[in-house]
Structure formats: structure tokens, C-alpha cells
């Protein structure tokens, strides 16, 4: 069932938890609301559940306006953080709770069916406190799913589990979602969790949706410094565009890429033109971004800038911008082998200040004139033993892997969204 939030906001006293928000979640999708704690994601979820009343706007489920409906009248069920299982009821009665309230028939049979789905048949008569965290999580899931809700809301459902169990439950949740085919809305602060499970991710920050799209799209083409830093790691460089035909621009390659002069870089860096929306979708067709095209986001009414206007297109008109590149896209060549850098690559000379060995990969910190700490990840395939701290190197990457961000918008600087050290 399609969920539509239109102009929905929530204020507590003079604190605005959620700014007016437009969001549509297509039927049958796995939708993740991702953000740090206090960003408004849980409040948004609670407004969907009916546990919080929006200060403005409307909530639609399919064609029905459910804005004013109390939680027990909504065809929506929630898996709560820490599960909220009823301690005075056993597992079977916990699962039967919703069915009994609605006085449906065949309660016993439906509960047994659900116990099988989550593989807890043997524990039907235990009390919740006698179960492990993973088992409690599955009971909470069964208790919600047994009612065949049109939308299932999950509030950090895996937050209390250890890493290994969390990985397993991520796959299990995804399997169940595919099996039952209903819309899942999942709130999490764990970017990896959101990326693994969701078809569409909405990154929230300070009560606003920063960007919405398929996981690959958010990662490859972040539109704000916050998204660039919150999802993985980004190297952001401040620069001024000089235009493809500008006096310093070298357009001999004729690639149409924007040239950006970054202080400290020997030559302007290349930034590909922002791909058209259709092009982006085509790019991602193979990566599983099935629902991104149908999903729309923006900020309604009183909200700030529209999300669309923040991409590189605007920056190209002249203002300063932030040039971004992911650490794993950068390659390092020793300074004396600088001639091996492919033609047309963006290049920054520098000196390795730190090298970390992580087994599967290596992490280098490179000090360059353009950026004091350029982070570089290298796969541990054939380790170049010359790359030790102190070595002079050239860091280079393909212009195609460069993204541009508006340096002034959003009130964010290059460090927005970075986790505290």
C-alpha cells in the first residue's frame, strides 16, 4: 500500500522535530529512514503508526486519509525498539494479541503458522524474559506480521543485537519482506543496515530529508556534504569552477567535464557534468534501484531550499563548490612513477603520513596541499611495499568518480555528518 506524507511536520513546544515533509513510499518496497539519533526519523515513524499526531499535513495510506485515526484503527503494525513484548503473556499469546482484539477466527492456526515462519514453534509457551535477544526480536516481528498489516514499521529493530546476529537478522528480514510482499518502513541509524536491506533510503538530518534514493545512488552521487560523510567516508575539496572553456581550462579532451580549480592542486580537477535524471536511473538499473524513480521527495511550503536545486547544476553557475571523491576510488603512485598516472585522471601530489593495515584492505592518509588529510583505501591485492609513511606519492582517480556539492547551501561545511572522533 502506497504511503504518502504530504507536508507532515511535528513540533514539540518550540522544538521542531520534523520539518514539513513530503514523502511517498511505493507499495511493496523496503524503505529505510536513515539518520543519527534526534534527526526526526523515529518521530516520522510514530506519525505513521498514529502514536504521534502531526502538527500539520496529511498522512495517506493508499487512497485513505489516516491522519486523524488512532493507532488501533490503522492497518499498520510496528516492531518496536527493544521489542516491547508483553511480559505477562507467553510467546503464543503475545502473537495472538492483535488477532484477539480484532476477534478474527482461526487464531490458533494463524499463530502456529507465524511461529513456523519465524522458527519459534518450540518456544510458544515461554515468557518473553526466557528468550534470547534474537528470539525476542523474532517474536516482535511475528506479533506484528500475524495481523497482515498493509505496512510494517520497524523502529531500530536490530539495534539491541550483537553484530553477528544483526547480520543474520538483516538477511532474514529481507527474506520475510520478499515472502510476504508488504511495504516495510525501517528506521535505523546504521548506514550499512539501510544499504543492505532497503530498496530506497531517505537520509534525514535535523528534521529534514537530505536526500532520497537507491543506496547506490546516495553513495555514488551524494547531494549534500552531510550525505557524503554520513554514508561512508568522503574526501571533500573546496574549489572554484573555471568552466570547460575557461582561460585555464583545458578542454582538449573534449569530454565536456567542468574544470574546478582547487587551491594547492597543480592543475584544475575535472568534474563530470551532472547526469540527467534519466541517465542516473539507467546507470542504476543493474544495481537494483527499482523504486527510486517512482519515489519523490521535496520540502513543502515553508521548508527551505528544494532538494532538487542543490545538485551540481547550480554550482556550475559560478559559486564555490565542494569536490568529493570516495577513498576507495583513489589510487596511489609513488612520485617517481608519476608517469604511470593515466591521462586525464585527477591528480594530487602529496606525502603519506599514515598507513594502516586492516588485512582485507589498507588505509592511507595522504597530506596534500589541497587537502591536509586525504583518505585512501586500497584493496590488499598486491601490496606496494614502497608506500610507507613519509613517501611522496601522487594520488589520482578517474574524473567519473568525482562528485560536486554546493559549498554554500544547507548551512553545512565539509565536515557535516562525520561521526565524532
Amino acid at each position, binding site marked *: 500500500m502506497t504511503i504518502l506524507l504530504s507536508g507532515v511536520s511535528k513540533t514539540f513546544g518550540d522544538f521542531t522535530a520534523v520539518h514539513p515533509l513530503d514523502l511517498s513510499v511505493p507499495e511493496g518496497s523496503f524503505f529505510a529512514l536513515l539518520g543519527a539519533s534526534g534527526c526526526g526519523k523515529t518521530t516520522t515513524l510514530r506519525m505513521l*503508526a*498514529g*502514536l504521534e499526531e502531526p502538527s500539520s499535513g496529511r498522512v495517506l495510506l493508499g487512497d485513505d486519509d489516516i491522519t486523524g485515526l*488512532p*493507532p*488501533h*484503527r490503522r492497518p*499498520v*503494525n*510496528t516492531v*518496536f*525498539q*527493544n521489542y*516491547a*513484548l*508483553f*511480559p*505477562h503473556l507467553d510467546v503464543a499469546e503475545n502473537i495472538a*494479541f*492483535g488477532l484477539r*482484539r*480484532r476477534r478474527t477466527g482461526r487464531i490458533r492456526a494463524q499463530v502456529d503458522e507465524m511461529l513456523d515462519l519465524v522458527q519459534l514453534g518450540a*518456544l510458544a*509457551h*515461554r*515468557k518473553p524474559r*526466557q528468550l534470547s535477544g534474537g528470539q525476542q526480536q523474532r517474536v516482535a516481528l511475528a*506479533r*506484528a506480521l500475524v*495481523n497482515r498489516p498493509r505496512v510494517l514499521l520497524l523502529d531500530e529493530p536490530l539495534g539491541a543485537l550483537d553484530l553477528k546476529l544483526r547480520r543474520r537478522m538483516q538477511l532474514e528480514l529481507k527474506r520475510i519482506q520478499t515472502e510476504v510482499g508488504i511495504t516495510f518502513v525501517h528506521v535505523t541509524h546504521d548506514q550499512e543496515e539501510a544499504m543492505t536491506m532497503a530498496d530506497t533510503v531517505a537520509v534525514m538530518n535535523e528534521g529534514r530529508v537530505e536526500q532520497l534514493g537507491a543506496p547506490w545512488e546516495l553513495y555514488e552521487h551524494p547531494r549534500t556534504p552531510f550525505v557524503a560523510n554520513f554514508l561512508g567516508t568522503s574526501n571533500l575539496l573546496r574549489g572554484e569552477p573555471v568552466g570547460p572553456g575557461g582561460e585555464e581550462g583545458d578542454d582538449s579532451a573534449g569530454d565536456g567535464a567542468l574544470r574546478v580549480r582547487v587551491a594547492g592542486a597543480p592543475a584544475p580537477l575535472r568534474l563530470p557534468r551532472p547526469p540527467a535524471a534519466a541517465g542516473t536511473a539507467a546507470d542504476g538499473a543493474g544495481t537494483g534501484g527499482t523504486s527510486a524513480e517512482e519515489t519523490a521527495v521535496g520540502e513543502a511550503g515553508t521548508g527551505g531550499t528544494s532538494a532538487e536545486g542543490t545538485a551540481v547544476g547550480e554550482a556550475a553557475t559560478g559559486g564555490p563548490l565542494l569536490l568529493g571523491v570516495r577513498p576507495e576510488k583513489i589510487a596511489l603512485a609513488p612520485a617517481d612513477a608519476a608517469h604511470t598516472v593515466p591521462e586525464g585522471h585527477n591528480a594530487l601530489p602529496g606525502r603519506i603520513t599514515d598507513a594502516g593495515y586492516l588485512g582485507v584492505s589498507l588505509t592511507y592518509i595522504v597530506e596534500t596541499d589541497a587537502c591536509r588529510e586525504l583518505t585512501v583505501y586500497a584493496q590488499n591485492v598486491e601490496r606496494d611495499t614502497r608506500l610507507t609513511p613519509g613517501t611522496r606519492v601522487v594520488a589520482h582517480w578517474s574524473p567519473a568518480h568525482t562528485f560536486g556539492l554546493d559549498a554554500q547551501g544547507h548551512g553545512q561545511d565539509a565536515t557535516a555528518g562525520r561521526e565524532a572522533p
Partner: protein
Amino acid sequence: MSLAAHTPAPTAPAPPGGAPPAPRPPAGTAAWTAPLRWLRRHAVVLAGCAALGYLLLPNAVVLLFSFNKPAGRFNYAWHAFSTDAWTDPCGVAGLCGSLGLSLRIALLATLLATAFGTLAAFALARYRFRGKSTTNALIFLPMAMPEVVMGASLGTLFLNTRIGFGFVTILIAHVMFCLSFVVVAVKARIMSMDPRLEEAARDLYAGPVQTFWRVTLPLAAPGIAAGAMLSFALSFDDFIITQFNAGPSTVTFPMFVWGAAQRGVPVQVNVVGSAMFVLAVAVVLAGRLAASRRRTQERKAAAG
């Protein structure tokens, strides 16, 4: 004591220097430290038994003397064994009447105090309103105030409002001080309840009324039960406040005992006291037994 047990321990290092080689521990040492060691190991159990004895001894004496056949009016010296009092507990004029009155008042006061106290506890734990902290302080007052003061001031109040002293005034007084204990017990329980449980119930199609009956009340029940039991015990044996607010014809059981004690306590008072004690112990034991049986069943279900 423990030091004495330690010093001759054979593991003590030999003094350095020209001291003679460490002697074997003398055979006598082990012999006289053994009882000390035993004492040390069982000190907690012994202290516990002593405390229990201290608490239970008076009850044992009451029970024993309920089988006495006193020589005179006073049941203070053992004379002869008899079950007369047990076979005829109402043989003393006024005793069973006062017992019935006390039970009626205690039951009614418990019922009213538990109902009002639970409501008040929910209000104080769940909502913010003007005068909340004042209410909290006022609720606490009856517990902190000396009973004599409370009894006397209530008596003055009833006298001035011209409510006739009797059953109703005693009931009002008892409900008032029982209320505090119920509020405290229930409030503590509500505060420790996870508010998400009620949200979960609402999310699972339970309306406000069903949420209350199916989730809130069962979860608060232990607190409410504790408050109710406390109320009953407090109301049943209250003497001071009752004394100030009773009418000429309303004599509760504690008042009857007090009155009888002036002229010589009848054996039947011991019978009633012992019976109440045995009943209370039986109720507690039954509760324990039921709980442990339920746990065993759960464990069995868990294992199976």
C-alpha cells in the same frame, strides 16, 4: 575472632633471619580453631535464625497461652492445658462483634483506599498538572505524621462538622491513611513500567479501554496487590486513630483487646491472634507455592 583463626595458620611465612626453622603447626591449634571456623562459615545463618527467633518468639508465646486454662483473670502464668478457648472463641461477650466490625472496616477501607489510591497513583505518575508536587507532599503526610496528632485532629474535625462518631468516621479515617500506602506502592510500579508496552497494545488494535484492562492493569497488579495487603493489615490493627474517632458503640478488635487488658485478657484474644497469624502465614506460603509451581511448569515448557 577471625584474626585469632588466621594467625596460627600454617601458611604464615617463616620470619626471616636466624629464627629456628618453621615448626610444624602444633596439633592443638587445629583442634581449637575448628569450632571457630565453623562459626565463621555459618555466622550469617546463625544471625538470621536469631533474628527470626526474636521476631517469632512473641507469636509462639501467644499461641502457647491460647491453650492455657488460667487460674485467675489474668492469662500471664501457665496453669493447665485446655482447648476451651479454641472450641468457644466467641465465649467472651463483645469479642466476636468487635472482630466482625474490624474485619468489615478493614475490608471496606482496603477496597476504597485501593481504588482511589490506584487512580491517584496513575494521575501522579502519568500526567503533569498544576499542584502535582503539592499533592505528592500531601499524600506523603499521613505516613510521616504521628498517629496521635492525626487521630486527634481528625476527631476535632468530625466533632466540628457534626458528623456522628461511629462506623463512618472510622472508615473515613482508615481510608485516609491507607490511601498513602497504596499510592506509594502503585506509583512505584507504574513508574517502572515501559510506556512502549501500552503503545504496542494500541498498535495491535487495542482501544484505550482494552489497553487498560489487557496490558496496563495486569502490569500494575503486583503494585496494587501490595498496596491492598498493606492497607488491610494497617486498618485491621489500627488503635490510636480509631480510638479518637470511634463512637460509643463502635468497638473494634484492637479497642476490645485494650479494654479487656484493663480487667484481665480472656484466652480467646490469644486464639484470635494466633488464628490471624496462622492464616497470614498460610496465605503467604500458598502464594509462594503457586509461584514456584508456575516457575517449574514454565521451565518444563521451556525444556520440552
